[in-house]
């Protein structure tokens, strides 16, 4: 029983980071209906940027988002104007072809620059663990989960309180009506794509406090975030957080109770079952 609760705790904390990653994907997919296959590789890119800046300047991974957040925002905006913008009126198949090309490009580029071996930063400032009622909680994961929830809250405020945030939401509800109200759709889309990509910078910085990075990481985070999105459905930010926690907990449980290799198996099975049984997700609006 102790192992169950312990792994549920670990998984739930990890799930908050998954929710943060998925929030970026859901901004991109929900607002402009663009299927971004490269999202997981943005996470990987963010982790490499964290490694690069952390090792070059000797900065702790927790503080790197100060640099990587604007950097990834820029990468996202450039990617939008260079390739996504041209496919908005095409079939979704073309969009997938283009983002798969982007995915291959990012993966090959990181391999070219940092080689294929895993990279990690030296120990982070936040390390060690605390004990509550006999359970062991890693401080790095606890802080990661906390920061993720704060970031999700921040984005949620941005979407509901500021003009650009409202423009993003308006464009996702009804593009034509929003355009008539003076929302510039290209500008809004670029903002959503940039913000969606930039959120991975925070997640990447947090992940690098307790994990290493290698170029194949993108696949895992890509499918993982689509799984969380399918479970949550579009349009509900608290739903995203709950789904992230469910997926993280399921992953951790399968690792401790069954087999460490079964973690992806469980995640993908949840994904497939959700699509069969409840295609709009647990909390979806459409």
């Amino acid at each position, binding site marked *: 029983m102790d192992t169950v609760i312990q792994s549920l705790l670990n998984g739930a904390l990890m799930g908050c980071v998954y929710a943060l990653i998925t929030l970026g994907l859901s901004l991109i997919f929900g607002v402009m209906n663009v*299927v971004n*296959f490269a999202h997981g590789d943005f996470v990987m890119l963010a982790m490499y940027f964290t490694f690069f800046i952390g090792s070059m300047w000797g900065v702790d991974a927790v503080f790197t988002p100060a640099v990587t957040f604007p950097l990834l925002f820029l990468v996202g905006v450039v990617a939008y104007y260079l*390739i996504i913008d*041209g*496919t908005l009126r*095409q*079939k*979704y*198949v*073309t969009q*997938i*072809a*283009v983002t*798969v*090309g*982007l995915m*291959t*490009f990012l*993966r*090959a*580029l990181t*391999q*070219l620059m940092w080689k294929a071996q895993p990279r990690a930063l030296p120990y982070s400032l936040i390390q060690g663990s605390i004990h509550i009622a006999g359970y062991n909680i890693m401080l790095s994961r606890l802080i990661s989960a906390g920061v993720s929830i704060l970031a999700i809250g921040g984005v949620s405020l941005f979407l509901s309180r500021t003009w650009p945030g409202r423009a993003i939401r308006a464009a996702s509800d009804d593009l034509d009506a929003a355009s008539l109200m003076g929302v510039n759709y290209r500008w809004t889309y670029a903002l959503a794509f940039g913000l969606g990509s930039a959120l991975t910078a925070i997640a990447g910085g947090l992940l690098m406090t307790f994990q290493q990075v290698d170029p194949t990481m993108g*696949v895992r985070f890509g*499918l993982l975030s*689509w*799984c969380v999105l*399918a479970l949550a459905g579009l349009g509900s930010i608290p739903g995203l957080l709950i789904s992230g926690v469910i997926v993280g907990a399921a992953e951790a449980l399968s690792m401790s109770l069954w*087999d460490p*290799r*079964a973690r*992806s*198996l469980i995640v*993908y*099975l949840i*994904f*497939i079952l959700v*699509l*069969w*049984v409840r*295609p709009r997700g647990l909390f979806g609006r459409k």
Partner: protein
Amino acid sequence: MRIKATTFNRVLLGVLLAIALLIPLLIRTNQYNLVLVTTVLLFGVLATAWNIIGGMAGQLDLAAFAYLGLGAFTSGTLLIRWNVSPWIGMILGGLVATGFAVLVGFPLFRFRVREVWYALTSSALVEVLKVAFVMWEDVGGPVERYLPYYSFSLYHMRFGTYIPYYYIMLAILVIAIVVNYRIGRSKLGFYLRALGEDEDAAEILGVDARACKLKALMIYAFIVGATGAVYACMYGFIHPSFFSGARSTEVAILGIVGGMGITYGPLLAAVILVSAREFLRASLGGQMESLYLVIYSVVLILIALFRPQGIAVFFRDAYRKLLSKVTGDEHVLRANTPGI
């Protein structure tokens, strides 16, 4: 002298086939080049088979190597355990892949999993199978299982050289193209194209979308599964890494940039892009590994952005112009033959 368009088509097909038959004889001393041309053919087969479900029916399937792996494991295990000939294993492997396709496809189409979600589910399937086979130690497991070695045994489909595999793959390719062509002109083909364009509209007009999609998925899975048996024999082992998500996605990409629904489009893309990629890999690999992938992915993006109809359309227009010059018939310029 006027030549008929059909005669010209046949002569051209004959010439292409003759070239394909002669290639291994020209490079027979270099096994590396033989592997390359066989790999090009392999991707040609996979992309051509993919055209049935992806190109015609518009279902973006990203699970080609799931079916290929199932075929390889079926035939490989039969050969290792019970000395069953891979020629029989090919059929059985195809049937196992088809069975799996039904198992997966039936609920997917029943619950109307479509477009992006279909693509993502199929992509997840490959990963599920990979993990499942790593964990299923009786058949898979983390270590390669080698097929028995024979320097030349037709019964075991094991040869010391790659030349026979090239010809087997070529034969499968011809079969895949013929199947593709026949389906394209059959009632099923028209149904598939209709629902590929607009599924709801096709259903209102009386197309049983579920049954048609399932049929297309089964045919595709059978061809790919049977190819898996040859794949296992060619590489001489079976391993869960056969279930590769990246390569499955590549098959779909070849189908898309080749030209969705055009019989020879995916093959054209496979021939041009896979050979270009391997050429880049061979010439750049020494100094900078994975630089070839950077260039390759940029080319993919550019094609998808600027030729969203596929490279086959470009070739088709050029070919029609040539045909109208040769035959003196203006009609071929406007001909609208399905799948061509």
